[in-house]
């Protein structure tokens, strides 16, 4: 049984690493369809990353070591996060060393490093991006934490797999607090992953860009790692959403190898649906002005708090 | 009610005179006259002391009377007169409160003093009911005189008059204080006068006048 748990753990991390670009590509494809464009291939993200890895890295003259370390740190945190989130099975040996709060802290670490790296060169875009990222972050992070907190309150634990298990074993009722938090979570997801209406990953317009502004000075393998980390982040967020709001289908405590086997396609299905839904949201909504972003996120925070109140 | 002996009636009359003189000083604006009134008050005090000494036969009181005569009737008025001549301050300007107003306040003070004196007179050695009250009144009237004057000289006379009141109080109520004390007090008064004399010259040297308005510079900023 223990070995199965370890296997689940490794599988989850490997799957995250492998499937994150795929999910990213899927969302892009869906979006293109919805917008009547011809869609890029599903594996386009992989190709882009592979290409970047082969290229020579160009680094600004005045970049400090922090600039070169940051992509690895960001990537590593996202990967570690993937190890905590119960995407396929809830009995993860590693998850006991980091609970949901630590997960939020992990995301914060990534964000801080990203922002610091962006400020390192001293370009106008870099600092602008860092500032905006931190602005989005300081509202998104507590909102996410409140989402987790509501779930923790319902299940009386902060361990993410345990939350997931308890929510899955509950009767299938629509708890109002969970409904509120689900809305909040979706909004946070959009904001944290640089999606419309907060950011547009497809544009480099200086007035509006956030995430891309921070990436401008990166090239080659560093950029590849950053892109991979971004994809992983989106994947992780999706998996958090599944764990909190649609935990059914993941391999729970009692389940053997069969349950795990069943969990893989179920996760795939969830991802497919989620990606499509994300694309729909992005298509139907318009990009907000940067100054409106705090309002958007404050609303998310408010929803999460409402969820706490109606608990 | 037992008839009051003649000596006591005389004492009462002298006491009343003291009070009257106090009122006169309160109303007087001319400095020279003020000093004269003070000398007169000293003389009355001396007479009262002698009377009491004769009645009680206390030698202490004779010495007191002699001291009073020497100091308050002869030395101090002469000293003051000389100062007035040397310094040329004959008149006080208008007092701070007009004379009728001052008189009215003085009257109230007398009433208050008499009220105050009642428990003391009950305990006093002499049978003069009003003597203590008059002493208190003289003290407080002298106080009032000092408050209403604008010249340093008049203020000093007020101060000395207050001393008279004290003396009268001590004498009428207890036949005088112990000798050590009385001598000490007399010495102090004398020294005070000497100090004052020095003072006047210093002040005049600095300010060319003895006007108290010159002496109002040390104050807090509002």
């Amino acid at each position, binding site marked *: 049984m223990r070995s199965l748990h370890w296997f689940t753990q490794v599988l989850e991390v490997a799957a995250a690493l492998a499937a994150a670009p795929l999910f990213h590509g899927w969302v892009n494809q869906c979006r293109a369809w919805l917008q009547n464009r011809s869609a890029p291939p599903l594996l386009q993200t992989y190709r882009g990353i592979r290409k970047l890895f082969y290229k020579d890295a160009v680094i600004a003259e005045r970049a400090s070591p922090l600039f070169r370390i940051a992509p690895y740190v960001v990537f590593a945190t996202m990967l570690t996060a993937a190890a905590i989130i119960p995407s396929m099975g809830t009995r993860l040996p590693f998850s006991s060393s980091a609970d949901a709060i630590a997960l939020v802290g992990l995301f914060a670490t990534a964000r801080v490093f990203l922002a610091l790296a962006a400020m390192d060169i001293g370009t106008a875009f870099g600092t602008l991006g860092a500032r905006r990222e931190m602005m989005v972050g300081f509202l998104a992070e507590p909102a996410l934490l409140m989402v987790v907190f509501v779930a923790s309150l319902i299940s009386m634990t902060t361990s993410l797999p345990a939350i997931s298990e308890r929510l899955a074993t509950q009767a299938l009722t629509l708890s109002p607090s969970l409904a509120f938090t689900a809305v909040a979570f979706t909004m946070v997801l959009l904001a944290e992953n640089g999606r419309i209406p907060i950011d547009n990953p497809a544009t480099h317009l200086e007035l509006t860009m956030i995430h891309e502004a921070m990436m401008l000075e990166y090239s080659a393998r560093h950029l590849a790692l950053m892109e991979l980390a971004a994809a992983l982040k989106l994947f992780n967020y999706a998996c958090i959403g599944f764990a909190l709001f649609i935990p059914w289908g993941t391999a729970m405590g009692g389940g053997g190898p069969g349950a795990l086997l069943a969990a893989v396609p179920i996760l795939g299905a969830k991802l497919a649906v989620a990606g499509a839904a994300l694309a729909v949201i992005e298509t139907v909504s318009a990009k907000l002005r940067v100054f409106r972003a705090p309002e958007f996120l404050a609303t998310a925070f408010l929803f999460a708090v409402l969820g706490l109140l109606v608990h | 009610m037992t008839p009051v002996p003649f000596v006591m009636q005389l004492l009462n009359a002298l006491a009343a005179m003291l009070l009257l003189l106090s009122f006169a000083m309160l109303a007087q604006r001319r400095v020279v006259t003020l000093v004269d009134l003070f000398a007169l008050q000293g003389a009355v005090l001396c007479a009262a002391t002698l009377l009491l000494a004769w009645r009680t036969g206390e030698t202490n009181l004779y010495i007191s009377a002699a001291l009073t005569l020497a100091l308050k009737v002869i030395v101090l008025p002469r000293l003051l007169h000389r100062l007035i001549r040397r310094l040329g301050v004959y008149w006080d300007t208008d007092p701070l409160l007009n004379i009728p107003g001052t008189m009215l306040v003085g009257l109230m003070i007398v009433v208050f003093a008499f009220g105050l004196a009642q428990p003391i007179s009950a*305990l006093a050695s002499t049978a003069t009911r009003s003597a203590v009250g008059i002493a208190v009144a003289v003290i407080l009237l002298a106080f009032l005189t000092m408050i209403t004057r604008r010249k340093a000289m008049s203020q000093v006379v007020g*101060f000395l008059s207050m001393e008279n009141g004290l003396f009268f109080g*001590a004498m009428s109520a207890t036949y005088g204080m112990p000798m*050590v004390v009385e001598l000490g*007090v007399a010495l102090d008064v004398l020294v005070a006068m000497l100090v004052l004399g020095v003072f006047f010259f210093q002040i005049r*040297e600095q*300010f060319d006048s003895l006007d108290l308005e010159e002496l109002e510079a040390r104050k807090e900023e509002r």
Partner: protein
Amino acid sequence: MDFLFVIGTPLAGALALIWLGAHRVAPVANVLFSLVTFAAACVLSVHVIAVGNLTFLHEQFFIDPLNVFLVALTALVGLTTSLFSRPYMRIEAEHRRVTPARLRLYHSMYQLFIATMLVALTTNNMGLMWVAMEAATLSTVLLVTLYQTPASLEAGWKYFILCGVGIAQALFGTILLYIAAEKVLGSQGVSALLWTHLDAVRHQLEPRVLSIAFVFLLVGYGTKAGLVPLHSWLPDAHAEGPTPISAVLSGLLLNVAIYAVVRCKVLVEGSLRSAWPSEMLMGFGLLSVVFASFCIWRQRDIKRLFAYSSIEHMGIIAFAFGMGGPVANFAALLHMTVHSLTKSAIFFAAGHAAQKSGSQSIDKIRGLVTISPTVGWGLMLGSLAILGLPPFGVFASEFLILTTAMRDHPWATPILLLAFGVAFAGIFARVQPMVFGDTTAKRLPHSPALIPVFVHLGIVLMLGLFIPPYLAHWYRAAARLIGGG
């Protein structure tokens, strides 16, 4: 014998210094006389500790725990002040602020002043006490006007008149006391004014007369102690006289006046068996504390500033004596000690500061730490000590007073605390820029001899952390004597 030395040395000194005049040994002689006085006072204290209460000269003088510690304190501060005055007055003479004739007056009157205070403290005769108090006023009036400036003359005049009038009230109070005592003790002899005799029969004294007497005495000696609203002379006199005189006026004379009030209070309360004399003292105390704290905010003259602080502290002491009881009395006595030590130290430092800067105006004194670190730190530490910051002794007494106030008169505590806060901000805001900050003045080649300042502050610091047992014993005995509460 030792007692005669205590009283006689300064008297002899006064005469000798008239004779010595402005001779260059006069300041040294001044110190020597003070030293002998201090030594005699120490011997006397040891003597009293050994054998208990003493009376001298047909009971005209007596020594008990209450006054012996004040005698020792007076002699000590008298000594240190004379030490301080030696270089200080020399510089003043060099600056041509005082003439040799005036210096003669100064030295002689200084000794006389010390003598009168010692007499006032040790006399058993309430009348003699009055005489000594009046003599103390007279001997200092001419010292206040030593500089012959318009300001000092004005201050001297006010000092003379207001204290003279005040003390006249005290005389009347003494007369009334005599009237009441005579009925009990008889007019034979002079025992009717001897405090020890009065104290023995205090329960038989006629209460109504005594209450009136107390009012007169309180107003009279209260004027000398600078209790608001009778304080008006104090800021002027303390600010305009030469600094050594400010130091002894603030440090010693106020103590003596408070001592006189307390002696009277003991008698009156014994007779009355009611608490209103205490309440009156407390009222005066509170009023003084509050009024002085606020007035501090208006000061532009360094010595005036600390004169108001003296009023505040006299208020605290009066309040503490008013509360009565062993702890409050103890605290009040302790406060008298630390206040007189600290305040005289502050005046020493302030005097030097003013001398260096050529002005007593707070705005003109800047950056003392840079010009002369000892003066700067002396002033700073002294001010902090007087503001009641631990570990200085002032805090110890204020702690005891505040805690007793919390117990007995909780309503007064917030008032006191408010006043402390206001006084703190007021004084500190003025001292800080004087001590710290930039200055255009040059650093002085030699630092002034401020040993007295640091000796005083050292003692105060010690009293904050550790009160020697014999001293505590002494205070306790004195506190018991005062009783009340």
